[in-house]
């Protein structure tokens, strides 16, 4: 069964995405921005709509909209009088609803919204896989180029600024990284579950990591493990893949948490 092309495509897509979740998820929780990924992923449904309306395909539409949302949020981040988390929640949910309404208004397109929301890993096409690979290469490039500076900024933004680091530029790079990751994960875990895959492995890796790199690397390994077990459950027990992957992540988190509390 594993040799079926559609199975292989789904597995490769999931593993690529899970390997990226380590470094990006770590940066996310180091910066205390877990909510941010939720907002971005919710806006992605509007991207699906845009892709269909413009005829450029859902992947391109999502990438454009999510990256744009990320850039707009960076600009608005510090400027409004509303509490950040409330602001992020409002913009995310609104974008999601606009996507749902817009898609329901398109009469001649029969879109399976559930597949976008919760993922349909076995429907990954050759085109999707090529897209995910491309996005992953871009992410790896951005991570390699800015990793050390991202850590410095996460620890002491003001000091980083005073030592000549372009904090604005690297914050934008971080937002774009997150946006790209979300676009690439739409087909595998779906928009509603992707931030779980970003945050939970990183939070789990924190329990036993001594250095930032070890944390990022372990988070990726945890992600890959959970994605593969989730994938297998989907194949052999016909469970929904995305949800099963996230549940495996949570179980691992719980186990590590318990072990840690027990040791201390």
């Amino acid at each position: 069964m594993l040799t079926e092309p559609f199975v292989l495509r789904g597995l490769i897509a999931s593993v690529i995405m899970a390997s990226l979740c380590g470094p990006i998820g770590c940066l996310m929780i180091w910066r205390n921005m877990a909510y941010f990924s939720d907002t971005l992923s919710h806006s992605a449904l509007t991207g699906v709509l845009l892709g269909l309306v413009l005829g450029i395909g859902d992947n391109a539409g999502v990438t454009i909209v999510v990256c744009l949302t990320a850039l707009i949020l960076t600009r608005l981040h510090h400027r409004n009088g509303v509490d950040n988390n409330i602001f992020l929640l409002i913009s995310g949910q609104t974008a999601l609803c606009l996507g749902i309404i817009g898609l329901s208004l398109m009469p001649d397109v029969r879109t399976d919204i559930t597949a976008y929301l919760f993922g349909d890993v076995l429907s990954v096409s050759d085109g999707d896989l090529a897209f995910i690979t491309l996005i992953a290469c871009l992410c790896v490039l951005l991570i390699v180029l800015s990793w050390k500076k991202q850590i410095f900024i996460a620890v002491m933004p003001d000091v980083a600024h005073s030592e000549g680091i372009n904090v604005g530029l690297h914050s934008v790079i971080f937002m774009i990284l997150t946006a790209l990751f979300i676009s690439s994960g739409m087909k595998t875990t779906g928009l509603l579950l992707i931030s779980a895959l970003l945050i939970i492995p990183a939070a789990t890796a924190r329990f036993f990591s001594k250095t930032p790199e070890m944390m990022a690397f372990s988070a990726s390994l945890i992600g890959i493990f959970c994605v593969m077990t989730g994938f297998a459950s989907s194949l052999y027990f016909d469970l929904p893949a995305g949800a099963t992957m996230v549940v495996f992540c949570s179980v691992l988190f719980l186990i590590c948490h318990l072990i840690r509390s027990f040791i201390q």
Partner: protein
Amino acid sequence: MVKDNTTQAVVKLNDVNLCLNNKNILEHISFDIPAKQITTLIGPNGAGKTTLLKIILGIVAPSSGTVWKKEGIKIGYVPQKLYLSKNIPLTVERFLCLNEHYNRKELMDILEETGIPDLLSSSIHLLSGGEMQRVMFARSLLKHPDLLVLDEPAQGLDPVAEEQFYALLNRFNQEKKCAVIMVSHDLHIVLSSSHQVLCINRHICCRGSAKEIISHPDCQQLFGEESLLSLYRHRHDHRHLPNGDIKYVD
């Protein structure tokens, strides 16, 4: 005003103003930070002291006015408070090398000098307040700065640790000949070692050497026997009118 004109300045501020959201944060700030000397900023909360430091550091751009810095100046900065996420696993060694890499000997030397030689491989999250302050201080010293910018460096330290910290700072100022500008509320310790004291309340209210401030009749009364709480009172030679203007009174 710095009396000693032979002292070279490392930073010169000329008529610096900062206005954010139509609110004047800083007005007409002009002063020099002389090389090798300690300049202390005092003033009430919300007076703009931290913002002034950020302007000197280049983190905040002034609305008008100029900030001149000596060419090739190296600045070490210790911020007021570190909001460090517990989620980042960091050892002291890694923390010290966040921006540039230093070899183990350089790191050990600086920790030795700052009195925390055993902490190199400790997790940064397990340090006490005093230890953390010394680590931050050590980090700012690593690149041999010409100017140290310290924002309430002894905040939250117990009296003993506080006194030790300022002793350390004074030693470095004298040994390494590096200029220091700091915001401090610990006047009883700071005043004795500062070469220049500026009292800031959006504008520079009064300034002088520590000696001048202390020998000032009003200040004598304030800094002498009264409680620390009264330290912030100073001679008011002007009043703020409702329209924001300043009226000078004799």
